[in-house]
């Protein structure tokens, strides 16, 4: 893909995700993204963080960055995993990809603990590799199919901003059962 094209796709993603009350940041490198992440969470007074399963190297970088500013990383294990994740103030994930025209990130997960990391805490922060942003929802069909066929159980979750409701008098309220804030840091 041409650089210019990719740039306009990224811009579209950013515009639409932000219109939907999400927040988008850009970083050059993984290191920069990790430190941006810790700044964002610090600003929100986050002390306990759950990190979803992801590429070990990325996970290690995130963990270092968060612990270096004094945050505690919780480790969900066994029958109590959901309670543990629930005790975190923020959940951090790595997006599998994102779709520009619907302004959504996509997470492919094989364990529901990873889904809970982006569902239970009040803040969801998500790293997203620049090259993994695609243009249209229609064009994600093959990615979805590949993900679903690669294992016996699998969930593909599209997330288009913080959770919301308009159920009382149509007044928009963010953060009902899911996160109040969703921060996406694009890097690479």
């Amino acid at each position, binding site marked *: 893909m041409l650089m210019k094209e990719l740039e306009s796709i990224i811009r579209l993603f950013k515009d639409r995700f932000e219109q939907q009350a999400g927040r988008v940041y850009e970083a050059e490198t993984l290191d920069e993204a990790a430190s941006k992440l810790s700044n964002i969470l610090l600003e929100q007074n986050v002390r306990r963080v759950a990190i979803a399963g992801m590429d070990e190297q990325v996970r290690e970088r995130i963990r270092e960055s968060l612990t270096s500013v004094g945050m505690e990383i919780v480790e969900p294990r066994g029958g109590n995993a*959901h309670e543990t994740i629930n005790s975190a103030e923020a959940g951090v994930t790595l997006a599998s990809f994102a779709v520009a025209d619907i302004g959504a990130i996509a997470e492919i997960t094989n*364990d*529901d603990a990873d889904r809970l990391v982006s569902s239970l805490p009040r803040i969801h922060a998500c790293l997203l590799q620049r090259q993994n942003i695609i243009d249209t*929802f229609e064009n994600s069909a093959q990615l979805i199919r590949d993900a679903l066929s690669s294992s016996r*159980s699998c969930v593909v*979750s599209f997330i288009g901003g*913080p959770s*919301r409701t308009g159920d*009382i008098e149509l007044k928009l309220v963010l*953060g009902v059962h899911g996160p109040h804030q969703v921060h996406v840091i694009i890097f690479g």
Partner: protein
Amino acid sequence: MGLETYEPLIKQLKNMLGQKERSAALYAAMKRGRDGRARTMQEFADFNEYRHGIRKIKERNIDNLDKLLERFMEEARKRGAHVYLARDGPDAISYIMNVVKQKQARLIIKSKSLTSEEIEFNEPFEKAGYEVYETDLGEWIMQVAREKPFHLVFPAVHKTTPEVAELFSRAYQKAIEGDLSAIMKFVRETLRRIFLSADVGVSGANVAIAENGAIVLETNEGNGRLVTSIPKIHIVLMGMEKIVERVEDAIPLIRGHAVSATGQRTTTYVSIIAGRPPLAGDDGREMHVVILDNGRSRMREDSWFREALYCIRCGACMNICAPYSVSGGHVFGYIYPGPIGIPWTANVHGLDKAKFAHLCISCGLCKEICPAEIDIPMMIARVKELDVEKHGQLKVNRILESYESYAPILSSIAPLWNWLMRRVLIRALMEKLTGIDRSRPLPEFKRNTFMKWYRKNAARLRAGGSGKKAVLFVDFFANYIEPQLAITLVEALARAGVEVVVPEQKTSGYPYILYGDLKEAEKVARYNVEKLYPYVKDGYDIISIEPTATYSLRESYPKLLNNSEESLAVASKTYEALEYLWALVQQGKIVVEKTLSGRAGFHIPCHERGLSHGKYAIALLREAGLEVEIRETGMCCGMAGTFGLKKGTLGIELSLAIGEQLFKQFKDNNLDFIVTESSVCKIQLEQGTGLQVFHPLKLLGDALKAA
């Protein structure tokens, strides 16, 4: 005859018409949905094309449903899911009851599922001692209030913030302030504990994908993700019509659903769930998929109702339904509310629960907004017909559905009849005898009908000259009430060198559809198509003045005649009068002189929305010097053919209540007069606004000159 079966409906409606705050809240919700949809549609190259794509997807998948069902079940089982095909509600409930009993569950949480409402899921489980929680906020409010949803997408839209606070305070014996943030805090905290301790999560499915045995869940609040991830058991309860073949089929349905419902690009969360993943390594977890038939197979075999299975439950149809806007989902609905609620209710809950079908005024707009292009009005006409067959027709409906057939007699005694109709006592008597409200000014009949004039001028009009030839479809109004409109039109055509003929024909017969007499409607359709088709074959175009008549020729007749070749040929050659004139102007065959001045408000009749939205009329009027602005609510003016002529709640009262919002738009904007192409909207608007209302042809009369 059969009047008593209407009584509960009329009583409920009367009660609702008195509750202005409720209908104001509902109106706001509907408008919000429509405006959002209109905004996001702009992001598509052509959303109507997109709708058409959705329809094709649903058509193909419902055609192949048998195979897809097998495939889906096989694929889901390969992933370890238990799949159960349930015949009906009790069957589904007893299967699920067994599962939760075996697992010794106690607490069941649900994310919004209309299918679970369809089978009234909660009650038997609550009775059996389980705690059942709706976790979608709107649904939870309804559960605590023990009410049925008022709106498909916003179930609790009729409740104010203080009412909700009060409701929760009472139910949970807790002091909750009457403001939104206090309520939200209570909701999040209370339900969070419920989420974390639930044993069973019940979800619906917006779509199911056969090729990989996956289900798609669309939610905004995030409850759907928690319901499907935390509990040991995930139970999916879905209608069998939800299955599509491939991921590519699912994507447009997901988008079309959100765009049509609220104007979101997709819902905030779209989860595609295949099998049951472990939770932090614990894989002793189960997924059960219960696929519900409950009348769907039967609907699939019924040529009238098959289309109902294309519904993706976006709720857009109820956002544009005028009678729904003033009656709400408790009156205009049983469990499934709104327009599509009528065929669904009739089929899954029984005809007797679908009496609210008679609130439909056949404006046709639900079809225009539906992302799957479902012909809801025609299905509703069928439900009315079934109901009429069973309980008989109201006398007033019987008179009004065929009023056009009295026209020849009435026109022959026009002076006497018109004089009679101006007598208060006579109108009172007529009201008593027929049910036509005395306060409605009735249009006066002309003794000199258009057809009389035409017979004298036929030879001249045959001359042609340009090689173009056309058949005029006159319909009722331009023949009996305002012949001058038709004369203006054919004279303009003649000046442009168009050969005009007016063969034998009947009036459109659309009122039969409104009152649910599809057999008569079909007869008229067959007659007119038989008369018109030979001309079409011979190269004639068909020109029609009345939007409802044009709509009948283009949309209703093919449907009534099973898309016969002749009916489709006639439909494809049918033009609106003003569309045809505008084309002649474009071709330089007619020039428009600047004879008009002033500022007019333009009303788009409902059936015109299925045609060109009045754009040709507006173009011609502007060309003639008139300032024209569209004023609209987006919905029906309330007259709905002859519906608004009827006395009583299920007639003029409902009709005027619907019109209120629109009347305001015309009255508050300093307009000189109103223009509309429909003869019946004219009656409503004149009465409701006090302004004069003109047909565009009447105004254009002298402006259309030979080139």
